[in-house]
């Protein structure tokens, strides 16, 4: 069958069968066409291409729909980020759509905040309530009394929210998320003069050295880099890439490493400089690369003079021999590639440590080269100090200057209480949440205007990173909306329309879909001769615009005014005597920053490292556990200067004895039946560092005490694995 006929047929069938009685005639479903030579037959049923928005990676998905219901999500083989693959969280997106506790219609609070007592209202009433408040702000000429808080948005939605807030006359517009790559951007700006995140050519490298970058579970684009990792290992005939991981906790990513270097938290940058110094001292560097970047080996060596092997070994707590070995291997195996991730960035000396890793890539000539790093074209720029903006917003709220807060996402869960966000938000008289589940924030809202699920939404999904070609993934609704919900941008447009005047003039679009199409049209740079409607259908069919006219970012080059990276000594909240352990709060493989928690498949998925299901745990080194009389599954109290939590212990061989780790993602007060009351939120323990405007989430000290023998820990597997490893020969 010709593509054209198939398409027409498909559209007719889809529009007839699935969207019967749908509001807009624009909302036709465009099925994905499986090219016969693609080599996959994922079963029949109709497939629709869309995009995953469960994390910033923005993978492409195909949704299998039969009888108007979404059945299964698969990777879109054409999408350049994930090439047909998906992570566990991406698979579970279908449970967002069919979650039994979705907010089915707008709600108005009728009890105390947080009680969860709401009354059903109509959309007209809901938007009316919001516009009344906004009109009051306009009348009082205090438009700055409106605040909008969202996760990092990119593409059309970012443009729309920006325009909404600017036209309304408010500067209180903050896009924030816990695991934001801001600090990586700051570091890149300082080193290379551009805030571009790195693209790692892992597939082609021969020596991979990761400093706390958990690229197979959470860092930037896990499916992309997971896939590249497989290629690095076994994709080439004669070469098997080597992988060394630096970090005090053996993460899921670190578990695949050939060598694990459990450096003291906060010493990673120092270690990188120690390696750099050795490479310089032994003339193992790429002199061409140094010259190209305007650096002189002699000067650099002098600048790094303090990072001699004995001192670095002492600061990092690693043997000198191992450090020297890694340095020599890294410098002599080309191409080699060094990564720096969140575990390093969220230390008090984060950005400078990340820069130390940049220097390593430069020294071995891995900038802009195969098997090295390139500037990423996914989102070449993005917020660089959203944390400072969040702190400023908190101050404004605390001062009582915010009268209406519109919130997308769940900051009451994902912003650490140490910032004072919780108390500050309580001072806002009117909170509007757009959550589709009653999450912690929605429970405190005065008005809930529930968003569509991702599989009911239109949108463009621009990957945060993971590509060298700019691209725009598209989201299209694959089923008719289940409930009386509305997409967040539609609500913004409707509100602007209601407000009239300047607002209506600035946001005149009929629908978000029209706005989106306009934006994509511009991006695609279609000439006058192109039939845009046909081209649009084609884009939807394939899942996005994978070839754009946007220019690729220019290559990385060390800025002439960039000083050598010099990470300060790490700084921790809590004194060592009272709080002897470093706390690491890391994104759980299944939950990312907590977004995965409401879905039962992910709750049931055994954590890869501990096999724990349905709960939280604290990881403790066996030696430490023995010293404290703590056994596997015991209930433990973890206290920091900021707070106290009780949770079960997991005796974990892959962690430094002076460190404990708790996964992020559990401990929701709301968020539906599956997440509510499961585990604890380690952010309650995280303290802020002095007055610094920096999110040093991994710089808190804690103490641990055994409480009882019953932590109610449930693991799916035996703590050691249920088959004896000698027997299975691995």
């Amino acid at each position: 069958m010709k593509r054209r006929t198939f398409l027409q047929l498909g559209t007719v069938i889809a529009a007839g069968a699935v969207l019967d009685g749908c509001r807009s005639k624009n909302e036709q479903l465009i099925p994905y066409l499986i090219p016969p030579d693609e080599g996959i037959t994922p079963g029949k049923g109709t497939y629709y291409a869309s995009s995953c928005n469960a994390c910033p990676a923005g993978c492409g998905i195909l949704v299998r729909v039969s009888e108007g219901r979404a059945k299964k999500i698969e990777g879109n083989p054409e999408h350049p980020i994930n090439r047909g693959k998906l992570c566990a969280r991406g698979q579970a997106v279908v449970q967002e759509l069919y979650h039994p506790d979705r907010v089915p219609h707008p709600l108005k609070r009728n009890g105390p905040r947080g009680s969860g007592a709401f009354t059903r209202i109509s959309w007209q009433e809901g938007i009316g309530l919001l516009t009344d408040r906004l009109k009051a702000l306009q009348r009082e000429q205090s438009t700055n009394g409106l605040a909008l808080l969202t996760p990092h948005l990119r593409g059309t939605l970012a443009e729309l929210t920006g325009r909404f807030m600017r036209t309304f006359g408010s500067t209180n517009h903050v896009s924030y998320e816990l695991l934001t790559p801001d600090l990586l951007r700051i570091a890149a700006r300082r080193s290379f003069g551009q805030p571009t995140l790195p693209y790692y050519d892992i597939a082609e490298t021969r020596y991979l050295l990761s400093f706390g970058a958990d690229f197979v579970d959470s860092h930037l684009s896990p499916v992309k880099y997971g896939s590249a990792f497989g290629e690095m290992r076994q994709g080439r005939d004669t070469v098997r890439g080597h992988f060394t991981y630096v970090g005090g906790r053996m993460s899921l990513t670190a578990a695949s490493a050939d060598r694990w270097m459990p450096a003291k938290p906060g010493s990673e940058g120092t270690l990188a400089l120690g390696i750099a110094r050795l490479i310089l001292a032994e003339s193992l560097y790429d002199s061409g690369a140094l010259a190209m970047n305007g650096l002189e080996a002699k000067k650099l060596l002098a600048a790094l003079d303090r990072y001699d092997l004995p001192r670095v070994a002492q600061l990092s707590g690693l043997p000198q021999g191992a450090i020297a070995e890694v340095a020599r291997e890294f410098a002599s195996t080309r191409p080699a590639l060094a990564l720096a991730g969140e575990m390093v960035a969220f230390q008090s000396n984060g950005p400078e440590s990340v820069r130390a890793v940049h220097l390593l890539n430069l020294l071995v000539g891995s900038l802009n080269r195969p098997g090295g790093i390139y500037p990423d074209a996914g989102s070449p720029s993005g917020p660089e100090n959203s944390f400072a903006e969040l702190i400023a917003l908190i101050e404004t709220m605390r001062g009582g200057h915010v009268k209406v807060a519109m919130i997308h996402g769940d900051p009451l869960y994902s912003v650490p209480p140490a910032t004072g966000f919780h108390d500050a938000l309580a001072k806002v008289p009117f909170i509007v949440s757009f959550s589709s589940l009653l999450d912690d924030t929605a429970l405190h809202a005065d008005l809930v205007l529930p968003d569509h699920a991702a599989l009911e939404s239109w949108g463009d999904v621009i990957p945060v990173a993971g590509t060298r070609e700019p691209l725009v993934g598209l989201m299209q609704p694959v089923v008719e909306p289940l409930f009386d919900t509305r997409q967040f941008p539609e609500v913004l447009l409707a509100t602007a329309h209601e407000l009239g005047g300047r607002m209506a003039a600035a946001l005149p679009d009929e629908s978000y879909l029209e706005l989106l199409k306009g934006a994509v049209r511009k991006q695609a740079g279609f000439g006058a001769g192109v039939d845009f409607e046909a081209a649009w259908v084609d884009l939807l069919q394939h899942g996005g615009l994978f070839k754009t006219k946007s220019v690729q970012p220019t290559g990385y080059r060390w800025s002439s005014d960039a000083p050598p990276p010099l990470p300060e000594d790490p700084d921790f909240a809590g004194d060592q005597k009272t709080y002897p352990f470093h706390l690491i709060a890391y994104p759980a493989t299944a939950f990312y920053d907590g977004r995965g928690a409401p879905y039962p498949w992910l709750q049931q998925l055994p954590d890869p490292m501990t096999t724990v299901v349905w709960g939280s745990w604290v990881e403790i080194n066996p030696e430490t556990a023995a010293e404290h009389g703590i056994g596997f599954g015991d209930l433990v109290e973890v206290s920091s200067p900021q707070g106290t939590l009780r949770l079960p212990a997991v005796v974990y061989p892959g962690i430094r004895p002076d460190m404990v780790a708790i996964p992020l993602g559990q401990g929701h007060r709301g968020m539906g039946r599956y997440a509510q009351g499961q585990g604890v939120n380690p952010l309650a323990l995280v303290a802020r560092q002095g007055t610094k405007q920096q999110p040093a989430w991994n710089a808190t000290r804690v103490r641990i005490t055994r409480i009882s023998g019953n932590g109610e820990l449930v693991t799916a597997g035996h703590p050691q694995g249920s088959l004896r490893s000698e027997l299975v020969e691995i």
Partner: protein
Amino acid sequence: MTSQYRWGMVVDLDRCTGCGACVVACQAENNVAICGKKEISEGRNMHWLRIERFWVGQYPDVRARFLPVLCQHCHDAPCEPVCPVYASYHNPDGLNGQVYNRCVGTRYCGNNCPYAVRVFNFYNHEWPNPLDNQLSPDMTVRTRGVMEKCTFCIQRIRRAKEDAKSENRTIRDGEIQPACAQTCPTDALVFGNMADPRSRVAILSRSPRRFRLLEHLGTHPSICYLKGGGREHV
């Protein structure tokens, strides 16, 4: 009965990162029940595919190893001869089938499986509305008292066979992908026809890194593992 297909899988432990994507993909494809905390604490998790994790050594020279374990589709399957009602049977393609509506729940098969991949419905499971919308129409929803396990996504195999038949050809290499292999980001799982020496699985299964799980038991599994790395491996 002979067949030109002998379905098999290769699991490359050097690629597998233990991420668990395959576990969820399998659950999604096959209407595998959602199990709560209590049920799993009783050892009654329903996953057809699990990732075993082993700790080897001690801090700081410690390593974690992952091993995806699913039904090995043994050619001499210990689960088959013990079923009194032939619910567990061997099909001509070498698959280890399970007829749900024949199963009377003696659990002999589960007891006899050395890989512990068979799971029993001790409870009736629920998908509270509208979660039931996600249930795949290709698969039955198993009720209490029935044993179930990995089928290599037999629904996908059947469909590919029908397609191939209607086009008068044999199934192409790579045409069938079970849900786990399809989603695996690192391409650690490869499925195909072991009877075709040029298929990707067959080629990979001749790798010097190959081994079979609990090989000494003589079950002759259809799944071939490739040894994972470590510094000793380079």
